[in-house]
């Protein structure tokens, strides 16, 4: 039952006088006039649906939608064989097309999609790109080692690798106290949330670029990972040279386990698309690209979510907590992500249908 509302009154205006079917001389026009009312009703329902006002539709209208769609589709089929009225044909084609998008495009609401996404879909997508994750991980570790080795052979490499903004006081030859000062604990949280927001926006932009480049370049994207990790390796060497390895790793791990993990996933997601397009297997390249692209997009939504966590961790616990607390938080986050991505939402637990619905 529909509750009385103001819309009740405005609706009656749309109902036109019944068309004078007998006045139409052509058989095809009589056919059209007989069905016009149904088409108009379908069009009105579509208008509401396209505006996202599902609630404004009565139950009758919602139930009638598939029937009206089929009637319009059959009208179109008949009209094509019996009518030469170009404007009616064009109208019916656009009407059936619009209805088709609504009838065969039942959408999940955003909340329903989020529930499905966080409840296993994300984990499954990440498990599906394990090979790319391994490649990206290998490249990142290699980058760190390279950075370390280069700097330990020749200190000049440090200035070549580490961008100017970091070289304030963290330069080779700096004393232990100076380096320790850069890892110090802040005493208040003032200004931290602004810092977090900036970090997030920046990191998310970079990881989206890394993802997109992974598709575009493949190898140069991996080189990007190598370069960035080489910076890390160089700084690791600097701190370890003053016997501050543990402090530096703890300082880094608070957000680093989350952030580096997110960057790893972003690079792997890009790599995944490039790999699937190069080796589509049994599928066509287009189908393979679309499938891997949608999977990678899910991973990227996960990456952006992780970066929100990373920014919050970087702004607050890293600046405010002591060395042991930093290490504990970092380790905990790493375990949490690993458990969530690889221990949760395993394929076996879910029926195959779920996979097909993707």
């Amino acid at each position: 039952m529909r509750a009385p509302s103001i819309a009740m009154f405005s609706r009656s205006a749309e109902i036109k006088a019944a068309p004078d079917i007998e006045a139409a001389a052509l058989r095809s026009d009589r056919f059209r006039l007989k069905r016009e009312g149904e088409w108009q009703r379908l069009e009105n329902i579509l208008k509401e649906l396209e505006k996202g006002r599902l609630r404004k539709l009565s139950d009758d209208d919602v139930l009638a939608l598939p029937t009206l769609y089929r009637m319009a589709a059959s009208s179109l089929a008949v009209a094509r064989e019996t009518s030469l009225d170009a404007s009616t044909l064009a109208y019916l084609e656009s009407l059936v097309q619009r209805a088709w998008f609504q009838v065969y495009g039942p959408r999940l609401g955003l909340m329903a999609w989020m529930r499905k996404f966080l409840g296993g879909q994300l984990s499954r997508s990440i498990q599906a790109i394990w090979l790319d994750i391994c490649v990206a991980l290998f490249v990142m570790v290699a980058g760190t080692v390279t950075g370390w080795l280069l700097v330990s052979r020749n200190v000049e490499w440090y200035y070549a690798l580490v961008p100017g903004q970091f070289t304030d006081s963290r330069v080779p030859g700096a004393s232990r106290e100076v380096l320790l000062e850069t890892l110090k604990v802040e005493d208040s949280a003032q200004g931290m949330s602004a810092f977090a927001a900036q970090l997030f926006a920046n990191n998310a932009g970079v990881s989206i670029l890394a993802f997109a480049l992974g598709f575009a370049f493949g190898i140069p994207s991996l080189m990007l990972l190598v370069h960035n990790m080489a910076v890390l390796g160089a700084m690791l060497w600097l701190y370890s040279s003053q016997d501050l390895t543990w402090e530096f790793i703890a300082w880094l791990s608070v957000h680093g386990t989350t952030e580096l993990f997110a960057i790893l996933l972003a690079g792997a997601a890009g790599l995944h698309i490039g790999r699937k397009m190069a080796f589509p297997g049994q599928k066509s390249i287009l189908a393979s690209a679309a499938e891997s692209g949608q999977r990678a997009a899910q991973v990227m939504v996960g990456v952006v979510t992780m970066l929100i966590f990373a920014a919050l961790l970087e702004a607050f616990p890293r600046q405010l907590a002591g060395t042991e607390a930093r290490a504990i938080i970092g380790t905990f986050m790493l375990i949490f992500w690993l458990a969530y991505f690889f221990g949760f939402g395993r394929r076996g637990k879910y029926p195959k249908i779920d996979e097909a619905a993707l």
Partner: protein
Amino acid sequence: MSGPAMPAQIRDRRAKRQRILVTPEGVALPLTIASRGARAGALMLDFLILMVSTVSLTVMMMFIGFGSLNGAVDEKLPGATEFIFVLWSLMWFIAWNGYFMFFEMGPRGATPGKRIVGVRVASRDGGRLVPEAIVARNLLRDIELFLPLVMLLSAPFGGGGAAGWAAFLWFLVFLLFPFFNKDSMRAGDLIAGTWVLEAPEQKLATTLSSEGAVGAGTSNVTGAQYRFGDEELSVYGEYELQTLERVLRDGRPQAIEAVAETICTKIGWNPGAGDERAFLESFYGQLRARLESDMRFGKRKLDKFS
């Protein structure tokens, strides 16, 4: 036939963008790939909207931000100012990344710009348009649009040297990607499994045969009767009929006069003046009745040459 006929080239170009989708009911639905021009126009409109809204929000936040400073001069910002700054950073990120995704996930599958030019995003396999696909197609915009433009701005000044030029040419491939495939997909469409289609909203026009002289063949102005014989009606086919329909629906006097004269010459009638519309309506009605009855017997005459 003269009048505002669709030039053959335009017809051909449109036909190249036509695709057929067969619905589960077995009805073939023609889909039209959106033209690249329309998509570029939609993109510019969207950027204009984004630009205006983000800049005006920024100005508004700056206004509030400076107000909340309260003359504080030490290096630590007051909480309220900091909060505004956080909002501003997030606003920027969400607006530029979320705008396209939010609107394309809506029931129309189109951003406001796309809606204005009448195109929409759809899944290429005929299934539903999933959020993953929309995320995927929008994440690639950076390398498709911004990187080539940045490279274009920096390469001529020798910022990157030969490598800069090489990078620019490489990114040009992404910028020009839609010109290298028949479905005008950009790289984002390719990996998301989507395409952009025309989404015309057609109004239902009036029935021609229940008005004027289409039905009876009698002019309301002069009362003259127009009857056409088989030979006179056999000169034209479906294409000419639908062109005539367009002339009648547009109702421009010069076009009607010109078309009436052409038809008269073609069928050997003596063109009179003053009653062209009724003449055309009668001719239209009888030609359509004849062609439609032939259709029911499986005979189709596509145009005057067939």
